[in-house]
């Protein structure tokens, strides 16, 4: 479920917490690793990924959202 934070790379700067309009990271504390409290409302806008200065966030795609193709 989106997003996934790479713990070893994350510097706990809080940028993703500031950016997310849906407050997916609600409850995250200053200076600590962000918590992904509400992955179910993630809009997949990629803004947290774009803005993260350490490239520590990956957006995962739920299986249910996989696009079928031929």
């Amino acid at each position, binding site marked *: 479920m989106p997003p996934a934070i790479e713990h070893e790379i994350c510097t706990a700067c809080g940028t993703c917490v*500031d*950016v*997310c*309009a*849906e*407050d997916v990271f*609600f*409850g995250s504390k200053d200076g600590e690793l962000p918590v992904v*409290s*509400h992955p*179910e*409302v*993630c*809009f*997949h*806008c*990629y*803004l947290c990924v*774009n*803005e993260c200065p350490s490239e520590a966030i990956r*957006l995962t*795609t*739920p299986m*249910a*959202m*996989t*696009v*079928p*193709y*031929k």
Partner: protein
Amino acid sequence: MEIETVGTDLLVVGGGIAGLMAAIRARDLGARVVIAEKGATKYSGAARAGNDHFMCYIPEVHGPDLDIFIRDRMLGQRSDILAALGPKVVRTWLEKSYDIVKLWEEWGIPMKQEGKYDFQGHAFPGRVKTYLKYQGKNQKPILSEQAVKRGAKIMDRVMVIDLLGGSDGVTGAVGVDTRQDRLLVFEARSVFLGTGIITRLYPNIIPALWGNNNHPFTLSGDGRAMAYRVGAELFGMEMMARHAGLKNYIRSGQGTWIGVCRDPEDRPVGKYLTEPNRYYHDMIMEVDKQIFERYQTAGLGPVYMDCRGISDADHDHLLHALEDEGNRSVLEHFKEEGINLKRNPVEFCTYEMRSIGRIVMNEKAETSVKGLYTGGEESTFSISGAATFGWIAGGHAAEYIKAVPSTDTASLKSQVDELKGFVEAFQNRKQGSDWADANRALQHTLADYAGPVRSQTMLEAGLRHLMRLKEKLHDTVVARDRWELVRCLEVVNLFDMAELVFTGALERKESRGLHRRSDYPYTDPLLNGKILVIKKVDGRPVAEWRDVPR
């Protein structure tokens, strides 16, 4: 609960395209402006990651006669909404649109392709192209910067929950901090509502994934609900629309697709395109959103978006446009899955029902309540409707406030106290259902009783059930933290709008567009040229037919 009072001339509710343009314009004209945004203005709203199409009239491209352009435009896409808005609103919109394009260009949003205005997509071959291709990836940071440098005060993480005043005029609003236990009382001489499209009324195609939608989950039509509660007129709540696009991965972006919708035998399912075309995307996906669903239920599908045969240049263009339209996530997903659009047709499907109800607005962006303005999806559509009417509203609000005395704080006290009590009720309850339970109950009630096929008996039963659920919402739902509190308040708005959907659907005794009545299966010509206006009278919604303003 801490209470903070903020005084301003213009309160902008929603820091989206419309709100930012209203703020910019009002600041230019000297009004004090506060933007209250539920999320984070630079990163919020449907436009947050970019868009690529701006409806406008450019004389040097379209010719000097705006009337001819309008006549041709009314033959095209979404002309039903344009017709409902009326000729004055449409003319004002298109007349102003080029000025907005030029402003955006000046502020750093690329509106030209290789130095030229290029119109692409959302048009039928042989008909006028009215959507300017642009690169809107950075539109939100750019517009936010323009607002801030003019001195607009942005208050992020604030959900405005109700307007103060009444049908005689607005005097301000009340909001909640979405993170701290704080209530904000805005004393404002005027208010602009720009809270966007309404989502979450109907179940989306994968209900468990609340966020899987082409508009953000937080767009709960707060502006419309508040407009209704303060006594403003709304219209068209019973009218519906659906969108279509990638199967399972719900995204916007129709004009972006350089391809043809084909069945499993590679036959085009529509009559408009047989080969991919950069300038004309396959309009079948705009004309008949339900074609994908019908093929599925008839066992004739799947239906694919087939981009095979496009040139490398067009493929490149398509990928860039996907990104400009805010769909980087789609590109990443395709990479993950090894999908190459030049080789792999991708499935498309029909998305959920939406109400396209709007706030009644005139060409000055005024609602029926003095001092209350609106723009964007609240009253028109598309980026252009947001940018243009936001701008227009800012101008008129700045003029209006000159003759308005500042609000007498004492007069607001009882309204503020009532709202505070309302909010605290959700916080203080110890046990009960949560926002998600209430939202799900709402969604399947609408889907079952005010869904694809409606009737007097079903609508009455549904409305009765809705009102019982509404009591449960107000009396038993618990917010276990601040995040849930905001969700509860959104669901309150959704319930109010659902009541208007039922009210309108009951009154509209005909079938028109996606509003289908089994007991009135025909479209009634006597209702052509009319809109169904709903307004709160003595606490209840009352529907009234009105001619579209000339």
